[in-house]
C-alpha cells in the first residue's frame, strides 16, 4: 500500500513539476475558461435571460471544456520520448500510475477552477456568500468524477492519431450525468437554498464519484497493454 502511494505521489509530483515549468495546460485552460465565461455572459439577451439563470450552466460548460484541454495533455509528456515504456519496466503498478496521473490532473483542473470561480462571480455577480463552502464541495465532487474518467480515456487515446479529437468525443457522454447534477446543485445554491435542498443530486454525484474512480482504477491496466 505504501509503495502504491509513494509511486503515485512520485508520478504526480513529476507531472506538477513539468507543468510548473511549462505552464502550458493550466494557462491554456484558464484563458479558454475566461473566454467562454465572458462570451456566454456577453452573448445572452440580458432582457430575456437573467445572469443568474444562465450562471450554473455557464460555469459547468466552461469547466468541463476547460478540463478537456488539460486532460488532452495528460499523457503527452509520456508520449514525447516514450517514457511510458520506462514506467512500465520500472514495475510500478497500473493503479499507482493511474492514481498519480489522476492526482496531477486534479491539481491542474483544480487550479483552473480556483482561478475560474472568482472570475465567474465577478462576471455573473452571483450571491454565493455563505454558500461558498457548499459550492466548493460540489466543484470538488464533480471534478473528481470527470477527471477520473478523463484520465482513463486520455491514456486510451494518446497513442491514436487523432487523440485531441477522440478525447472529447469519448469523454462527453460520461460527463453528462455529473455535469447535470452539478448544474442542478449550483442552481440550488445560487438560488439561496441550502445544499440539502438538492440532496438527491448530491447523492447521485457521490455515486458517480465512487463508480468512476473505482472503474477507472480497475480498467486502467487495460489501457497500458499494446
Amino acid at each position, binding site marked *: 500500500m505504501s509503495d502504491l502511494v509513494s*509511486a503515485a505521489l*512520485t508520478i504526480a509530483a513529476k507531472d506538477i513539476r513539468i507543468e510548473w*515549468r511549462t505552464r502550458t495546460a493550466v494557462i491554456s485552460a484558464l484563458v479558454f475558461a475566461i473566454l467562454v465565461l465572458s462570451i456566454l455572459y456577453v452573448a445572452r439577451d440580458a432582457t430575456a435571460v437573467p445572469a443568474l439563470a444562465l450562471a450554473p450552466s455557464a460555469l459547468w460548460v466552461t469547466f468541463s471544456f476547460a478540463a478537456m484541454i488539460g486532460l488532452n495533455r495528460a499523457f503527452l509528456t509520456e508520449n514525447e*520520448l516514450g517514457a511510458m*515504456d520506462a514506467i512500465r519496466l*520500472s514495475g510500478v503498478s497500473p493503479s499507482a500510475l493511474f492514481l498519480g496521473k489522476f492526482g496531477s490532473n486534479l491539481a491542474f483542473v483544480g487550479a483552473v477552477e480556483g482561478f475560474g470561480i472568482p472570475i465567474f462571480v465577478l462576471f455573473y455577480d452571483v450571491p454565493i456568500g455563505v454558500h461558498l463552502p457548499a459550492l466548493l464541495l460540489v466543484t470538488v465532487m464533480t471534478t473528481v468524477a470527470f477527471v477520473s474518467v478523463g484520465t482513463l480515456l486520455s491514456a486510451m487515446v494518446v497513442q491514436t492519431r487523432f487523440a485531441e479529437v477522440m478525447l472529447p468525443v469519448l469523454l462527453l457522454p460520461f460527463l453528462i450525468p455529473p455535469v447535470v447534477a452539478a448544474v442542478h446543485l449550483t442552481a440550488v445554491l445560487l438560488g439561496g437554498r441550502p445544499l440539502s435542498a438538492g440532496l438527491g443530486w448530491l447523492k447521485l454525484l457521490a455515486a458517480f464519484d465512487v463508480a468512476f474512480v473505482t472503474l477507472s482504477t480497475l480498467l486502467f491496466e487495460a489501457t497500458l497493454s499494446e
Partner: protein
Amino acid sequence: MSDQSPGSPGPTLLDVEGVSRRFGYHTVLHDVTLRISSGDVVVLLGPNGAGKSTLLRVLAGLLRPHGGRIRREGTLGLVGHRPMLYGALTARENLQFFSRLQGINGGRADALLDAVGLVGAGDSRVRTFSQGMIKRLAIARALLNDPDLLLLDEPFSGLDDHGVDVLRGVIEQRRDTGTGVVVVTHVFGHVASLHPRTGILVGGALHGPDPGENADAVRARYRDLVLHE
C-alpha cells in the same frame, strides 16, 4: 538464476523458446529461440524491418508474444528505439524520477551520469540535448537498477566516436560483472572486440546466435542469409 545450461558461462537469464509475434495478419517474429546466460553478449543483426526491435520489446515484456514461451530471471534494463525519458526534466531529474519509482537510492543517478560522461549536463533539460547525449542518458537510465539482463536497441546510433568507446566500455564492464547483454545493431564493428555470439534476424526468423565468429565470418553469413531471403 539457478538454471545452469551446459557450455554456457553462467546461469540462464533469458530462455526464449519458439516465440512468434504478429501485427494484424502480418507475422513479424517466427519461432524465435534464444538463450542468454550471465556474462553473455549476444549481437542481433538484420536488415530494416526484420523484427529486431519487436524482438527486444517482446523480450522486455513490453509486447506480448502470440506463441512460444519466455522465461526471464533477474532485473532488466532496456535501451529502446525511443529514449524513454522526459524532455521537460533535466538529466538528473529523469534519473532521480526513475530511481524513486524503482525504490533505488537517488545517489546512483550522479554515478551513472559520470559513467556516461554527462555530469556537466546533469542540470540541463533533456529537450536541449543532442541525439548522442539523449542516447547516453537513456543508457544511464537503463543501468539504474543494476540490471542482470541488458537489452540495447541500436545503442550506438547518434553516438560520436568517444560515445561509442564509452558505451563499449560500459557493455564490457557489465559483461565482466555477469550481466547478460543483447545488442541490436547494424554495425557489427562496434561490438566485434567483445567477441559476442551473433544472431541474424531475417524476415522474423532468427539464425543463430553462433559463437565467437570474427567480423569477416559474420559479414559473409549475413550476406548469405539476407541475399538468399
